[in-house]
């Protein structure tokens, strides 16, 4: 198990290096001369050459990458152009908020998805399964930005049940209760698509497991259907882990629409605002941090999977 963990951690390193290369290349292919934009259009050619040399931009690309990568490794992602503060602290704060929203949404999506998928798999051919299928189909097709707006209209302003925006009430806010109230609408909105995906994947996984020979063999040994379901669920767990990881990763990067609609101070909103301000260092850092989180989630998922399934450990 420890060996497996080490191996899995080791295999994440080349991916992280790859991620950094992709981000670096993306910076390089962005149209426009960074030096010119830093110094302004009226700057002298001499000043530009000086700055180019100072920033190391006259070096060959691999050298530039290495020096950029070294900064990256030390957590130095540069300063925000718009806000003049280190990008990293900005991004990490926002990422924390996104993590809260994404985790909440993931829990909602998981409960919903397992219920829908389970009903659909175990009640095949009945009305309840058809309804579950229809719900999951709609929920994966939903455009989050418009559903979010509709929830605001009817549940926030209309019924006055939940706040429309933000993470805490600015006047007498704070505390867990306030956070929860603010979480409900964006959380549910963000959970819709992953809930549908989880439902559909879980459905096919349950159908697969239930059609395996050992289920029937357990029946022949006299096990009750309830107990058989318990063992069947155990056998869906490795797949469920994979789905969970994929969807949590998706949520970490995918709540941008929801954050924009609900003004949730997360990474998505930060990136969105940085887009309008063309604050590229922030966008860059946002992408790197969420990719890092995604890789970490994948390692965790694989380790959990190995803990459940002995065949993976081998």
């Amino acid at each position, binding site marked *: 198990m420890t060996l497996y963990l080490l191996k899995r951690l080791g295999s994440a390193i*080349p*991916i*992280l290096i*790859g*991620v950094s*290369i*992709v981000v670096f290349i*993306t910076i390089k*292919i*962005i*149209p426009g001369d960074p030096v010119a934009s830093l110094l302004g259009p009226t700057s002298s050619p001499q000043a530009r050459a000086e700055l180019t040399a100072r920033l190391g931009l006259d070096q060959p690309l691999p050298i530039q990458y290495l020096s950029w990568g070294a900064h990256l490794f030390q957590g130095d992602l540069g300063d925000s152009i718009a806000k003049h503060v280190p990008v990293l602290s900005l991004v990490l704060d926002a990422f924390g908020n996104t993590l809260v929203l994404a985790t909440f949404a993931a829990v909602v999506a998981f409960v919903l998805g397992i219920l829908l998928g389970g009903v659909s798999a175990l009640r095949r051919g009945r009305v309840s399964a058809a309804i579950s299928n229809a719900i999951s*189909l*709609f929920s*994966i*097709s*939903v*455009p*989050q*930005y*418009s*559903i979010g*707006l*509709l929830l*605001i*209209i009817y549940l926030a*302003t209309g019924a006055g049940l939940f706040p429309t925006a933000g993470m805490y009430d600015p006047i007498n806010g704070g505390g867990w209760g306030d956070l929860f109230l603010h979480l409900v609408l964006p959380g549910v909105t963000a959970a819709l698509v992953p809930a549908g995906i989880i439902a*559909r*994947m879980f459905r*096919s*996984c349950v159908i697969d497991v239930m059609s395996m020979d050992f289920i029937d063999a357990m029946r022949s040994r006299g096990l009750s259907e309830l107990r058989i379901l318990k063992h069947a669920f155990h056998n869906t767990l490795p*797949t469920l882990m*994979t*789905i969970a990881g*994929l969807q949590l*990763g*998706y949520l*970490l*990067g*995918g709540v*941008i*629409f929801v954050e*924009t609609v609900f003004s949730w101070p997360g*990474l*998505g909103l930060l*990136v*969105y605002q*940085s*887009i*309008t301000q*063309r604050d*590229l260092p922030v*966008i*860059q850092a*946002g*992408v790197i941090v*969420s*990719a890092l989180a*995604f*890789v970490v989630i*994948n390692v965790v998922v694989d380790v959990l999977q190995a803990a459940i399934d002995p065949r993976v450990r081998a």
Partner: protein
Amino acid sequence: MTAIALPAVRTKRRRSRRLPVSARIAAGVIGLVVVAVLLAPVLAPHNPTQGQLGERLAGIGTAGHLLGTDGQGRDILSRLLYGGRLSLLSGLIPVLVAAVIGTLLGLLAGLGNRFTNGAVMRTLDVFYAFPAVLLAIAIAAALGSGASNAIVALSVILIPPIARIAETETARLRGADFMEAARASGARTSSIAIRQVLPNIAPAIVVYCTALIGLCIVYSAGLSYLGLGIAPPAPEWGVMISDLQQYTFTKPELLLMPALAILVASVAFNVLGDGLGSYFNVRQEVR
């Protein structure tokens, strides 16, 4: 094989002969939408980009403006019809581009030697590490707004999953008898890829891509909504949502129109994808 499972197995293995009813309905809906947006110049009652400020924010059912008007007095039905052209195209083109590139990469990895396979698949792993939506937004942001940049961004994020499916399906065929036979007869890899592998992996890719079109319509409208795709005043469903958003509290039903258009198109493609999946007997796998 003993006889126990015979009745079930025989029906399961056989490709179901007919497309499910739901998928036919979905195909019909898609057909209707396509015809409607193609006939937009004929069907649209008004100019989609020029409004009359005197008639702004007319409600649904207003005479002359069946689905109402937006904040600049533009007819929403006309904008939906014209906007559907851009919305559907920007849902379709990235999937087509990604399908071609992704299939090629998948074939290359699936039929290549260990080195080629490793190089392609590990590169894809790197792209997998980026959250798709955020990556699309970052690419679109870096390239600047505009329809073509949004299409490039969406194509990039759709390539890895398609390539992975193509690779899995190709690898599954590698040991098949007809492949051995083709190889033994001295066929070139490229000809094996086109004649033997492509027809066999095509169903899985077509099924997946059909559902992706639905997703891509939602994403591309989302990019426009964020101001990264098609720029106003061009009519486009995502742009329309963004335009109408400020009237959320006064005229929410107007906002519902483009949202419903996106939902209907997206559901239709997803249902069609499901139906094709059961028609071709393609398994849904965790990806």
